């Protein structure tokens, strides 16, 4: 049985349904991420798990016990807030001691527990400092130590790295992964940053407009997005839509406007005549100056209309004669110069049937 079960939870604010019948089951020891754009309901859902907000329908169960109506202080769940919310009038030690004192921990046990928690977040020796004497990253660690010191069953993290700069964020990501492994506590992490979600999580729930679109491992979310929204939100994706004109020998052919027939490996029975959308990651597209060898499954000519040089890779936007846009991504390292093509170059794009897959609208 799952450790934390969110069953059919709904939350409305007036006419607006922030969370719309969400059901998610999170396993013990899992690093689980709620990912979605702002306003998708992920933070509202997290606040309901923490107890700061009550669902209008459905229930939240921890280890089989109904938590729904319990106040935050009576839940074995701790939150790391986006703003850290460190108590400014207390030292680092005072902040970390706070939940222990609230739990009536015998005072002789407190110093050892503080020391252990600070060691977990690599802040040994910072105990006597005040929050205003710490950097953003250090404050973040204190907030995590404070939340973990009582060994909660679940740790909720609400965009905890959003306020840090890119370099520090990456460092903290690695530390969070290690910390979670070390303490073995279930982490429920909220973020709008898809790369962060992919890097950190065991599983991701992608949310949109109050609903969960897909729950899966990062590689499945990225490689096999189920819906148009997920494909588009996670990384870059070419989305080609059109009517199905054939389904033969395990290959479905879709007639895409401005491109022509696009062939995709059939993953389910799709009858001809229906409309379908094909998702195709830019890095799966071959882009060459001369026509590819043999007869590839999909092959289209075009011109480089725009490019984004990003150092390690370059994103090429190729326009076909029919007016369709194809986005392709190439690592620059093999080029032997800065990049392969320039704007205006005529190029040949191709990909095998296995590269694309169908997504729901």
């Amino acid at each position, binding site marked *: 049985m799952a450790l934390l079960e969110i069953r059919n939870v709904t939350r409305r604010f007036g006419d607006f349904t922030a969370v719309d019948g969400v059901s998610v089951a999170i396993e013990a020891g899992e690093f689980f991420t709620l990912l979605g754009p702002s306003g998708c309901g992920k933070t509202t859902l997290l606040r309901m798990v*923490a*107890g*700061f907000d009550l669902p209008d329908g459905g229930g939240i169960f921890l280890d089989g016990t109904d938590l729904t109506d319990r*106040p*935050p*202080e009576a839940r074995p*769940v*701790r*939150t790391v*807030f986006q*703003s850290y*919310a*460190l*108590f*400014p*009038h*207390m*030292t680092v030690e*005072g902040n970390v001691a*706070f*939940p222990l*004192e*609230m*739990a009536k921990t015998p005072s002789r046990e407190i110093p050892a527990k503080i020391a252990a928690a600070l060691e977990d977040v690599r802040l040994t020796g910072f105990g*006597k400092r*005040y929050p205003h004497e710490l950097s953003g990253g250090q404050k973040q660690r204190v907030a995590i130590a*404070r*939340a973990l010191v*009582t060994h909660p069953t679940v740790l909720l993290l609400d965009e905890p790295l959003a306020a840090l700069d890119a370099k520090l964020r990456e460092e903290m990501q690695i530390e969070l992964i290690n910390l979670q492994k070390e303490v073995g506590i279930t982490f429920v992490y909220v973020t709008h940053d898809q790369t962060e979600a992919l890097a950190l999580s065991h599983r991701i729930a992608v949310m949109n407009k109050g609903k969960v679109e897909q729950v899966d491992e990062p590689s499945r979310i990225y490689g096999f997005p189920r819906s148009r929204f997920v494909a588009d939100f996670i990384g870059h994706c070419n989305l080609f839509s059109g009517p199905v004109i054939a389904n033969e020998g395990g290959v479905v052919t879709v007639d895409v406007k401005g491109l022509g027939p696009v062939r995709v490996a059939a993953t389910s029975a799709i009858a001809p005549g229906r409309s379908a959308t094909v998702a195709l990651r830019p890095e799966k597209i071959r882009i060459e100056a001369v026509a590819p060898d043999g007869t590839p499954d999909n092959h289209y000519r075009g011109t480089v209309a725009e490019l984004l040089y990003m150092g390690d890779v370059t994103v090429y936007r190729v326009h076909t004669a029919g007016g369709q846009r194809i986005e392709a991504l190439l690592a620059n390292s093999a080029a032997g110069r800065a990049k392969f093509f320039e704007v205006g170059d005529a190029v040949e794009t191709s990909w095998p049937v296995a590269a694309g897959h169908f997504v729901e609208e």
Partner: protein
Amino acid sequence: MPAGREGRWGRWFVIGPPLLYLVVLFAIPTLIMVLASFRTPGEFGGLAPLVDESGKLDLNLDSYIRFFTESVYAAVFLKSIIYALVTTLLCLLIAYPLAALIAQSPKKYRDLLLLLVILPFWSNFLIRIYAWMILLGPQAALARGVNGLLALVGLGPVPLLFSSFAVLICLVYVHLPFMVLPLYANLEKHDRALLDAAQDLGAGTWQRFWRITFPLSLPGVYAGAALVFIPALGIFAIPDILGGPEDTLIGNLIKQQFLETRDWPFGSVLSIVLTLSALALAGLAAWVGRRNLGTPSSREEARA
């Protein structure tokens, strides 16, 4: 350098007027008072000549000796401090929930509620004290109600007016806004996330108040306490109008020395002692306040 000189003139232009104001209306009068406290009272009030007939400079410690040797003055002083402390405490107890309520109310109502707090300032101070005379008078509903209840349990009627009760109730009434405003200014800035965090970490309602809200509001408490305590210590109009013979405070004593007894040197001594004790108490409060905020001891005290 012309730029430097211009800057210097600019600075004098800004700080000059308030400095002049302070020198002429505060520093010089204080010095005159300090000097007067060492002089001899004149035969018909005021001051005796600074240089007497024999050409000797007439400066002495007589008035100070009188203050420190006659215990009646120390007693009045102590009583004044107790009245001011009780006033400060009562103001704090009433103002804190009020300020918290205003700080938590929806933004659009806050200005209106603050306006209601300072509304009494729009009518004259003395008129408001006389209003209390009517409210507390023997024929008013309040006195009749209280004495009616007392009669039920077999106790004799008590006068509400011309009593310490009347003085204290009016002291609290007059000074309440001075406590509400700094408390509100402080509480309004509190970060809601801190209370959420405390609750998340297991703190109940009272623990959230005593461990988070109250310690963080201490600067507002100290500011309000100073704004109430210092004027309450020197007040004379309220005990004059609403108090009984037992309610003579240091302010009344000073007023008597200057206007009735016409002993200016002794009045000066009383004023100086009042100023110094107010300064000392304010300094003490500031020191305690600084110690409480920003040193590890704050946690120990908060926990105790």
